[in-house]
């Protein structure tokens, strides 16, 4: 009986040692993901919870427009961005074809959650260089800037909850900036 207990205790100790050693090696050697990457992921989580956004956006040197973006059925499932100049941009959830560059940029700047989530995720997956800084946009903001080649996607997030408050896009094809506010629909 005693030998059985010794065997069991030693076996358990070896198992726990393996667990502790494995964990320690990971913790000691692998780096933590950069703060900016984690903030961007948290922004994706926040976006996933929101279906409606109001925004003011400006594309290139064009006029400043007000936008309302919602996710739902119109009557097909997708995202609809309505701009104050009367234009409407619909992005079907089922379509495989991506919208044209300008429309895609307007959807991202308009705070349309699905498109903005995709843009952030794509940047992270493609190994974008992520930098963070602080800024004042009427209130304190955490600025997360993601550079992929010549394109930069910049998010302005609330510093603690990482709720997107604004977006800036800068690429050789299209540029723009916006302020976003998520609302309950």
């Amino acid at each position: 009986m005693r030998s059985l207990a010794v065997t069991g205790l030693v076996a358990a100790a070896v198992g726990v040692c393996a667990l502790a050693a494995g964990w320690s090696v990971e913790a000691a050697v692998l780096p933590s993901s950069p703060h900016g990457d984690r903030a961007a992921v948290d922004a994706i989580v926040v976006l996933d919870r929101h279906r409606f956004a109001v925004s003011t956006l400006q594309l290139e040197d064009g006029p400043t427009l007000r936008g309302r973006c919602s996710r739902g059925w119109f009557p097909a499932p997708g995202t609809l961005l309505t701009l104050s100049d009367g234009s409407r941009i619909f992005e079907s959830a089922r379509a495989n074809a991506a919208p044209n560059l300008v429309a895609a940029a307007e959807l991202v700047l308009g705070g349309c959650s699905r498109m903005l989530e995709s843009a952030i995720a794509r940047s992270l997956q493609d190994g974008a260089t992520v930098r963070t800084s602080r800024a004042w946009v009427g209130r304190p903001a955490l600025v997360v800037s993601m550079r992929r080649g010549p394109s930069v996607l910049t998010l302005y997030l609330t510093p603690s909850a990482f709720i997107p408050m604004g977006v800036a896009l800068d690429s050789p094809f299209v540029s723009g900036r916006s302020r976003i506010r998520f609302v309950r629909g």
Partner: protein
Amino acid sequence: MIDASAVERVDPFSASRAWGHRHAWMLAWWLGGRAVVFAAAAASSRSVGALHTWDARWYRIVASDGYLLVPGRQSDPAFFPLYPVLLREVHGIGIGYATAGVAIANVAFLVALVAFHALTRELLGSALARRATVYLAIFPLGYVFSMGYPESVVLAAIALAGVAALRGRWGLAAAAAAGAALARPDGVFVALPLLVVAWQRRSRLTPVRRGVAFGSVLAAVGGFAAYPLYLDRVLHDPTAWSKAERAWGRRFTPLGAVHALQHLPQAFASDHWVVRDVAATICYLLLLAAAARAGAPRAWLATGATIVVLPLFSGSFASIGRFGLLAPPVFWGLAWLGRDRKVDRSLRVVSIALLIAATATVPFAFP
């Protein structure tokens, strides 16, 4: 008086020289096989950079930036940590990630060949061990052992754990088993043959050594569990691995294998390369049956079958060709088929030809 002949017998230099002479053929097959892979990779993509593509990129991201779960998207928690740990350590001495990744994989493959040969010789005799080791060195899908992937590290750890257990070196068996499970989830299945060896030898061991023997089984489980525990620390989500796997299209369900078969036509329509994995799965199962005929221990056969069949329950055939490389009985089955001299020669020639062809596909299809 000191007996001069006794001193010579324990001389470590002459012992290691003799070991080197006995194993030189293995080094030659390793060099030859890897030269074929490097040459084919260079010829197909004009550089050996192809060996650091596909998942190798994700392992590099883990090594350089740590884990990050991107909700609903393909992200790096799908990749186990031991290989990125090694990658970061080697990178730390001033070697680029791509070079470090390929170097680790190839050196680990040499270790895997030596350990695999020792394991096979213990279980099935010298002649079969030699053939099996040669086939492993030039196996058609074995180009993966030269890529920035953890497969060679895992195979080395699995074989080391097995041979250490058979030789009663249970501490080493525990360390190798933990390492295998920390490098790839399939590594945990080495626990089964370790359990059987520990059980068979239980009456010959002292209570403490018996504890270490059974502890080596738990070490595999401990190594595996260390990863979700670490994910809980860095991502506050111990299930991040399975969430990331889902984004890669893998979700384990009891009917996953049925779904994999049902969805085969659609899978083929979207990616013709799935044929390669289906063919590999069938080949592996046949080779496991051949290994059974060769007298391979049932625990190892069960481990091999689990490594080959379990991924099917994720609903996909994708990459089973690569996963099956971690099943030692597959090569034992091949060696049993090659017991006739003519068949042996044919298998070697066909393997090398297929290895060249398979390596040339790296720029077009992930393994």
